[in-house]
């Protein structure tokens, strides 16, 4: 239906709001990095260019992200083949378990790894005891540790994308290749993998962008080994605001450059929509091979679940009761008890909860409004709205934290700037911006799948716009929106990267509390927070999964 004047006004209003929330802070950051009005200077950029450590951080961010893509692909794609193409006992359950790391907030994954493989972690204690070593066998430190965590948490992208693409593959295409005389390998290289290319590029893009913005792993594992994100936070903590702004701008440009490059590779694709039926799974017949697959599969799942299990165990170890033993001597609920009985300890939980609820709710409403207007208007307005909603996804969280900190530290209401830093407003706002791409995309996907004739049918039956939206559109996009909501909630709840820049003591979220507990060696308390975060995330993940299934 043709947009009315009223809906055009609404679209402009939403676009303006998004510009203010998303692009305006970035623009202000650039302007201030250039000295600001009246004092234009390139000095800060020159300073950046002169410093060796800046270039090193830049280089590390780049190579670690690239290596993360390669490693995640090497783990994720073969797994996708195994679970999509073969049939063995336990395939369904394991197939779902393998996707679990995506449900773990980055910081929780990092501390779980620390407790498991760190110097005093389980595995290193075990190896040390078994081999009778004086020293821990390794130190979980530096780029190796970062890459380990990245691979663990990001292979899921490759796994999920490749599996979905394999499931969509037209089986008759493989049969055609076979009839034409191509062998297994030839078919794989010439037919299957080229068909997977768009999915693999999509996963690569997601992995690269996530690694580039990754903060928790470098921060916890590689204090001195700075990548761009940790460099930015360090500069800011040291009071070098202008330098932090320059670094943020450079990292943002790098992210946008990578996005542009990979998108260009994607646009070469000849998109074919297969209409056939996916090839049937190869049933593993030989009992030996069946058991082989089952054993490998279950140990893999065990490996995936080990960090979660470790976290749970550590949360049961009372403070300073576990020193050199292989297995903790005392296990009880004192850490939980402490947390629930001390209001000051409970506070981060409540903070995280209310801020995540507010931010997610805001992001859902804004995302839904923007998506609806984008599809209704189409053309340039539609593209602009879609782009604005998606932009925060491409910009690392650290950059947004710096940008919001810059924009909302000045009182100038007439140009849309307020002093919100240090108030309870800034963190939910930051979470909202970070969640917007998730909720916006989900809403877009849901609305796109909707037959426009449904709303027309409602109108022709006498329903006004509100009624049609409430009774027809909303119930039908609800699964998609709920899916986005769950994922957004996980993101907001576990956020560390923007929180560390923008938190105040009163509004400190769980992640900040985990970090301070780690600093004072209260591993049990950190683990309790981690477990609670994990449970909340798992609940949200289940909601998300149900939403996905409901599509």
């Amino acid at each position, binding site marked *: *239906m*043709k947009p009315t004047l009223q809906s055009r006004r609404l679209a402009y209003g939403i676009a303006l709001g998004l510009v203010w929330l998303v692009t305006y802070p970035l623009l202000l950051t650039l302007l201030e990095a250039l000295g600001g009005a009246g004092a234009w200077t390139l000095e800060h950029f020159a300073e950046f260019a002169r410093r060796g450590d800046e270039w090193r951080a830049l280089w590390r961010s780049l190579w670690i992200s690239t290596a993360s893509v390669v490693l995640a692909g090497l783990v994720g794609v073969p797994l996708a083949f195994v679970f999509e193409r073969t049939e063995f006992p336990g395939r369904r359950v394991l197939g779902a378990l393998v996707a679990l790391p995506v449900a773990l907030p980055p910081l929780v994954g990092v501390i779980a790894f620390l407790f498991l493989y760190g110097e005093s972690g389980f595995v290193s204690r075990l190896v040390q005891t078994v081999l009778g070593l004086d020293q821990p066998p390794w130190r979980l430190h530096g780029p190796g540790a970062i890459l380990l965590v990245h691979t663990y948490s990001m292979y899921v992208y490759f796994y999920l994308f490749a599996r979905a693409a394999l499931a969509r593959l037209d089986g008759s295409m493989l049969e055609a290749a076979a009839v034409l005389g191509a062998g297994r390998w030839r078919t794989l290289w010439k037919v299957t993998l080229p068909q997977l290319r768009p999915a693999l590029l999509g996963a690569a893009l997601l992995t690269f962008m996530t690694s580039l913005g990754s903060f928790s792993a470098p921060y916890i594992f590689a204090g001195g080994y700075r990548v761009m994100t940790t460099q930015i936070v360090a500069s800011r903590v040291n009071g070098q605001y202008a330098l932090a702004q320059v670094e943020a701008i450079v990292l943002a440009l790098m992210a946008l450059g990578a996005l542009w490059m990979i998108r260009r590779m994607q646009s070469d694709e000849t998109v074919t929509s297969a209409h056939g039926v996916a090839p049937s799974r190869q049933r593993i017949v030989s009992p030996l091979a069946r058991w082989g697959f089952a054993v490998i599969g279950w140990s893999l799942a065990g490996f995936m679940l080990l960090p979660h299990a470790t976290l749970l165990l550590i949360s049961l170890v009372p403070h300073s009761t576990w020193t050199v033993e292989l297995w903790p001597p005392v296990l009880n609920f004192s850490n939980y008890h402490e947390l629930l009985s001390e209001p000051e300890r409970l506070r981060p939980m409540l903070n995280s909860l209310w801020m995540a609820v507010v931010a997610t709710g805001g992001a859902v409403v804004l995302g839904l409004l923007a998506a609806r207007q984008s599809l209704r208007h189409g053309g340039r307005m539609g593209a602009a709205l879609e782009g604005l909603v998606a932009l925060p996804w491409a910009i690392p969280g650290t950059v947004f934290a710096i940008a919001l900190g810059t924009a909302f530290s000045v009182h100038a209401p007439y140009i849309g700037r307020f002093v919100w830093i240090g108030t309870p407003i800034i963190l939910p706002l930051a979470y909202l911006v970070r969640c917007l791409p998730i909720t916006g995309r989900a809403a877009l996907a849901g609305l796109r799948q909707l*037959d426009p*004739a*449904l709303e*027309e*049918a*409602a*109108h*022709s*039956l*006498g*329903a*006004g716009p509100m*009624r*049609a939206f409430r*009774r*027809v559109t909303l*119930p*039908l996009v609800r699964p998609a929106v709920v899916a986005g909501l769950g994922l957004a909630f996980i993101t907001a709840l576990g956020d560390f990267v923007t929180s560390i820049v923008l938190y105040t003591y009163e509004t400190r979220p769980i992640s900040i509390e985990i970090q301070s507990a780690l600093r004072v060696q209260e591993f049990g308390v950190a683990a309790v927070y981690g477990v609670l975060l994990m449970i909340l995330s798992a609940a949200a993940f289940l909601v998300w999964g149900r939403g996905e299934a409901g599509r």
Partner: protein
Amino acid sequence: MDEHLGSHRARAGIEAVTKAADTAAGDDTTGEGAVDGGTSPQSAYLELRHLDKSFGDVHVLRDLSLELAEGEILALVGLSGSGKTTALRLLAGFERPDRGEILVDGDDVASLEPARRGFGMVFQHYALFPHMTVFDNVAFGLQAQSKTVGLAERVATMLELVDLQDFGDRKVSEISGGQQQRVALARALAPEPRVLLLDEPLSNLDPSLRERTRRELKAAVRKVGITTVLVTHEQEEAFHVGDRVAVLNDGRLEQIGTASELYRTPTSRFVASFIGRASRLRGFTDEASTPRRGLNDGHEAWVALGQVQDIAVCWAGVSLQPMAEGERVELIVKPESLRLASSETGGALPGRVVELRFTGPLTYGVIRLMGGEEVEVLVDDDSASKKGASRVPKVHEDVFVAPREGGLKPRVFPLEDGVSREGGVSGDTSRKDVSREEVDE
């Protein structure tokens, strides 16, 4: 031959009788105008006046005017992109016309929101609300229009109308395509709309189901007696369901009339070749063999198609406008207005059978004439009977093509400039089978 003609007429007669019976079986609210045939209804209930619509540079509707009597069913047919769907969307209010008026019972509704128009619509893919039950779907319009008094009874009545009284609790995903189609009709009719719009309502059904559903659809609409506009690309559907049929081409109304009028007396080249199957032949109006009175009175012209052994072969055709002698023209001939003959007598053209298409009751033959042009002919045992044995010719057999006496006249139109060769038979081999065109989405 005459016998055959007789049977042809008889068939048409049966059609007319069936139509009348259908009408009689319906509600008595059906106005006289509904079956009045091609002439425009005496008092229009729904009126489209000079509708114009463009999307960007594309002019989709040009000055479209239509009138429907109360209770009349009008079928809109045309190729994809002809503007028929746009016309329907303008009626529904999903698009606004650039110019023109839409009157219902004298009120202009062109600027009303779809929700306030009181038009019911059955969508091509039904657009049933998948998250609601059959009952809730049918009740939706009543609730939206606050007609909640006696809601349950009304819904029940509607479900009974479409023979789905026991299906109220089902989810729409749990019923078959044909049942979904009927729910869509019940939903559209439940709030007692003033006008019913049907957008390709049967195109999503199995061919085997389509004919039965078509009958049921027509019966239900007749029973309610609602003024209805049906958009379809299936001529058969339009002919069966519509009291009158309007042919749209390139956004314009080509012709409106009863099915039989469109078939027998098409007034434009487009309608002549669009309705049914047709071949095109080229020739020129012939001086020598044209009866003096025929040529310029705009009714019947003799067309010379070529010379066979010094004999000019001429066919009589109905021409729609006065023509000069020797003018290049195009004949649009339906297969059923031609027959196979055993000799060149009676202005028959020699040719060779290149293809035979057996369709069950009828067989069509494609005959390549001397000049290379191909023409489609309805072949029956009767055609060949003069040869003695009653049989259908074989492919590659030499035959003669002659007009079926007393049959449908070919239509003659002036040929567009610069397309023909000099002299003789200038054959055009184009055959059209427009009934198989894609549905426009």
